[in-house]
């Protein structure tokens, strides 16, 4: 079986026994449940090193590599110990760099490439490891250690996380970036790895871990406060159980009043008459004394009611004005004589004191105010011409009322 085929076979086996593996992973102890029916599957997993039986009598557990793979992919909040052996990885990188240069110098191209690939893998692994550890810390901090309910457990996990962060930061500080920069300078391939990728990852981790430690410290303070408060409640409750008549000292009675008891009294913000308050009765009496005794003039207004009974009302004759009668006369004349009447010529019928403009406008208004049936009897023409310049404007100089 080729290397490639063997790898595919392993991955297929993982897929084939996925339920069994996940069952073990979720059991939180990573122990595979062995039954008669799955004996063959368990044996295959052991053969492929996916599962391990530590002793002949012991249970079969998942290999930590598989467990780590699942934790990595599922982004679980499980508590993992940090592989802080970054120093060794760095040492390995320096060794490979040394060998790489030796092969390059001796013109052993195959060896050089092999060392380069190995170096790339090592740098990637170190970067992934650093990032994974940082993310793991953040996942724990983000979850507020909700995997456990007890405050003591949360505090222990928090302290553990802080220690992990500190140890990772210490190890990161030990990575000699200047040396890496120096050895990477001589080769383009190495420059990419040792000048860019690794320093960038280290910087990112350093920043994230600094933030994480800040947050963890704040959380630890909060957790310690909660513990102190829980103790307070417990001790006071115990005290009242033992001594139900217990009352704290009257601190307000002391000369130096503790600021914690300094709270304002509620001020009523809504005004209302206090009818029981007699403090201003005297002033009110004095004010009332000076008031006049004569009753004020009755200022109520009375209106004569108009009868709403229509039958009692005499018929009302609406008297038309002289001007209105004259305007109507023009319309009557037009109909009775069946001839057109010029507006300006009819002006002579107007009563005294009426301007010609008013007369003409009144004729137009009367025409417009006629009901539809009456208006059909007449037509009104405007005599004039369009403006020479502003041709949209029609300038009427006279009107003619024509019978239809």
């Amino acid at each position: 079986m080729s290397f490639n085929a063997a790898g595919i076979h392993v991955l297929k086996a993982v897929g084939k026994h996925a339920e069994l593996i996940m069952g073990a992973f979720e059991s939180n102890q990573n122990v595979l449940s062995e039954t008669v029916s799955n004996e063959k599957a368990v044996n295959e997993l052991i053969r492929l090193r996916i599962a391990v039986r530590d002793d002949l009598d012991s249970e079969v557990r998942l290999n930590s590599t598989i467990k780590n793979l699942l934790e990595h992919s599922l982004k679980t909040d499980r508590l993992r110990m940090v592989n802080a052996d970054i120093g060794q990885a760095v040492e390995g990188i320096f060794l490979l760099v040394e060998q790489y240069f030796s092969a390059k110098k001796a013109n052993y191209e195959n060896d050089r490439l092999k060392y380069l690939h190995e170096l790339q893998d090592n740098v990637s692994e170190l970067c992934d490891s650093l990032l994974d550890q940082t993310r793991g810390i953040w996942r724990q901090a983000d979850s507020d250690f909700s995997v456990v309910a007890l405050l003591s457990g949360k505090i222990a996990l928090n302290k553990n996380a802080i220690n992990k962060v500190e140890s990772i930061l210490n190890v990161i500080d030990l990575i000699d970036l200047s040396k890496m920069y120096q050895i990477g300078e001589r080769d383009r391939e190495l420059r990419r790895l040792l000048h860019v990728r690794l320093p960038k990852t280290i910087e990112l981790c350093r920043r994230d871990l600094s933030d994480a430690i800040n947050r963890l410290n704040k959380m630890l303070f909060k957790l310690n406060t909660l513990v102190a408060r829980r103790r307070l409640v417990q001790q006071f409750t115990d005290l009242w159980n033992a001594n139900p008549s217990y009352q704290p000292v009257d601190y307000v009675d002391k000369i130096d009043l503790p600021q914690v008891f300094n709270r304002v009294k509620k001020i009523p913000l809504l005004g209302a008459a206090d009818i029981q308050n007699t403090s201003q009765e005297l002033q009110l009496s004095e004010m009332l004394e000076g008031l006049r005794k004569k009753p004020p003039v009755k200022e109520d207004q009375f209106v004569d009611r108009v009868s709403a009974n229509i039958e009692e009302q005499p018929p009302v004759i609406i008297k038309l004005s002289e001007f209105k009668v004259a305007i109507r006369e023009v319309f009557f004349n037009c109909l009775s004589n069946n001839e057109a009447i010029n507006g300006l010529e009819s002006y002579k019928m107007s009563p005294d004191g009426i301007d010609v403009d008013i007369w003409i406008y009144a004729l137009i208004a009367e025409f417009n105010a006629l009901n539809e049936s009456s208006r059909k009897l007449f037509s009104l023409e405007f005599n004039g011409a369009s403006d020479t310049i502003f041709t949209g404007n029609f300038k009427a100089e006279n009107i003619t009322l024509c019978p239809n």
Partner: protein
Amino acid sequence: MSIEQSQEFGRIIESLLAQEFICQYTDEIAYEYLSSETYRDNVDRFLRKIGRCLRQTEDRNTYYCAYLNIDSSTVRKHLSQQFKMTINELEPLCRWLSLIMSATQRDAPISPGDALRQGEILSGLENAPALVDDLALIVRSGPFASKKDKVSDQLNHVLNALDDQGYLQRSSPSSSIYIATGKWSYLFEVLEFIHTHEEIGRVSQNEEQNGEVW
């Protein structure tokens, strides 16, 4: 100051003078307003003109109003009344905190922002007769006194009383979920002060030791 800011300013002053505790859970807008140093100074300056000042709890989560000068007899009288009310509340509130920890299986006492679900507390009480007795003790006398017999009614009564007193706030008017306010921070400050000055812990330890001897 814009009209909105001036309205907000007035509202906050009124709340503080009405003895309210302002935290992000009771009034998020007012809390944000007071979180700005400039606005906070404005509020404090105004209060100082009328003989009061703005104070914060030690955890800096809650604002309240205090007297600027505590030497006058009127202020002392007011403070004495306040103190008696606070002291009367201490025992039932401590018992309530202890009860909630047991009923909801929390390892920490109520903190500002915690959500209390009436159903969860009730089911916790139903499963533990000792806690039902503790609740009965809380409503027997003091600020939470009630003549109700049923556990659910007693619980409802205490939750409503805590809501009225500003320790809890319903998440919505008809909800059975209550959010703890910043007033608990103030309560813990009072407890801590008394604890330190009256050496409560030492008293309890001595009693425990005496118990062991006997």
